[in-house]
């Protein structure tokens, strides 16, 4: 069946997925160490919505509970959704663009660059400065973008950017950034714990300040990426053919690279490296729907949001919180291996 035969079905499924995500976010807010009832949580949330607020009697909800829900849980759950959306959308885009199923959002060195930036900030004591807009986050973001820029400059020849060169340059620059970071860690042993924890990928301490920057970047970026789904499809069916159809292949690639880099840089800066989301979610979607990017991109985005909110919720259940990045890898790796084994059977 061709795409346009099923267009409305996809649109409906996408809206349904979006609603599911919102519902999940609300449910997730009720989960955590502090025992706050579902009813109280709803009261706190609804109480904050203009107009509706008047209808709830908020008197009996304690101030601490309100703070926990509004300032600790809500921002982190929203961040989880946004990061899941961003990483999966970028993963799906890269896999389509590079025609490489193993491309994840970090292939171009974003994670290594961000980690280096964060390490420099932590070593310089920037994480201790309270109140300012997280200097560590800012450093991570800037270094992430800087790394991609370097990778891109190495890979490009004239107007063209070859996929192979990009991926290889990404690997090389990542290793270089990581080695610089190792040197920093060796020279600053007292900071090793902080740096390692940052790299584990946690969203436990996400603040509203970060969310306010992260969410618009991710949403705008994801929508922008989805707009190019048709071009991405045509490019995947052959670059020369795409050029003859009037697709400006190099321009599309460059625009997508810039958008994707900004999304991933923002995600990594807030959360550290959260692995496997950008790999397994797009692959799962592709397994169900086929490789049409008009389907894969939006559904990966929603699916990634749902997946990361779920993982984040589970990470809060044990008494000592497990960083969400550890959880995604713990669930993601075995699942990914099972996909691999299944696809192997298909080929043989």
């Amino acid at each position, binding site marked *: 069946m061709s*795409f*346009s035969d099923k267009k409305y079905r996809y649109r409906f499924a996408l809206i349904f997925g979006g609603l599911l995500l919102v519902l999940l976010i609300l449910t997730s807010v009720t989960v955590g160490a502090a025992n706050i009832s579902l009813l109280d949580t709803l009261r706190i949330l609804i109480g904050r919505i203009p107009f509706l607020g008047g209808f709830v009697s908020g008197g009996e909800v304690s101030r601490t509970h309100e703070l926990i829900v509004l300032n600790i849980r809500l921002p982190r759950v929203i961040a989880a959704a946004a990061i899941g959306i961003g990483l999966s959308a970028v993963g799906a885009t890269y896999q389509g663009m590079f025609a490489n199923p193993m491309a994840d959002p970090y292939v171009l060195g974003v994670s290594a660059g961000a980690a280096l930036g964060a390490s420099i900030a932590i070593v310089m004591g920037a994480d201790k400065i309270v109140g300012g807009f997280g200097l560590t986050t800012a450093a991570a973001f800037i270094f992430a973008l800087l790394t991609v820029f370097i990778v891109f400059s190495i890979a490009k020849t004239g107007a063209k950017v070859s996929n192979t060169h990009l991926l290889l340059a990404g690997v090389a620059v990542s290793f270089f950034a990581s080695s610089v970071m190792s040197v920093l860690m060796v020279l600053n042993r007292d900071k090793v714990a902080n740096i390692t924890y940052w790299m584990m990928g946690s969203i436990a301490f996400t603040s509203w300040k970060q969310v306010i920057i992260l969410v618009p970047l991710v949403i705008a970026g994801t929508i922008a990426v989805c707009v190019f789904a048709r071009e991405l499809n045509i490019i995947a069916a052959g670059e020369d053919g795409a050029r003859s159809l009037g697709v400006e292949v190099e321009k599309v690639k460059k625009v997508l690279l810039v958008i994707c880099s900004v999304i991933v840089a923002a995600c990594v800066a807030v959360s550290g490296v959260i692995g496997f989301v950008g790999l397994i979610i797009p692959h799962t979607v592709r397994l169900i729907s086929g490789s*049409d990017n008009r389907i894969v991109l939006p559904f990966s985005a929603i699916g990634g949001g749902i997946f990361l909110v779920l993982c984040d919720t589970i990470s809060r259940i044990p008494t000592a919180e497990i960083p969400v990045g550890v959880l995604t890898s713990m669930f993601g790796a075995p699942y990914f291996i099972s996909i691999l084994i299944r696809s192997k059977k298909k080929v043989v």
Partner: protein
Amino acid sequence: MGQDKAYSIEVRDIEVSFGSLNVLKGISLKMERGRFYGILGPNGSGKTTLLKSMARALRPQKGAVYVNGENVGRMKSRELSKRIACLHQSTDITCDYPVMDVVLMGRYPYVKRFQTEGEKDREIAKKAMIASNVWHLKDRRINEISGGERQRVFIARALVQETDIVLLDEPISHLDIQHQIEILDLAGTMTQEGKTIIAVLHDLNLASMYCDHLIMLKDGAIVAQGEPQKVLTEEIVKRVYGVKPFVIDGMNDNRPYILPVKKQRI
């Protein structure tokens, strides 16, 4: 510089090199509307490079290509893709789209952003798919059909572009004889509708049978061009391919027929 609008496509003194390798050494061609042109030549003689330069998939270092007098190098991508369709030589594919969707990609220049292909586009696609005999494959996945079937799907995609000029790089190389004839017949019909067809062919006899005008390339230069009788002579074929042929005249409206002769018999 006044360009002659009488020509559908005009190649003016183009030179292409990859590094120090000169692949096209000053090629000039004038092609008229409604005719079927065949480009011939041994492997590596620059046929694909010439076709790519015409389709602007490649920018020549020197010279230019004109479509109805307009410089192709200065045209907008979308505009160009409404004038020239190009079937490229290799159609290796890593995606798994339904055949119908692949053909509909040919409507890309006509469908605005934020829109999907409409009823009219699907009608055009259907017509093209019937013409290239792939309509029965419409719901199959592009990576799960045979090489020849895929070739015909990409031909349908080029038709759907509704251009006046269609470039075909070895359109019949993976096809069986029935489909070879079918595709060339289709190309012939298209020339009657006023389209200009330019095809790279390896089969000298089919080229002789179908083309109005042949262009013989060797080492990036035109060795001979003109109607089949003038190009497919014993002397030229031997000079270009290094094999001595046996030429039979007077077959299929006086078109030459080439029989290769085993080397040791010469």
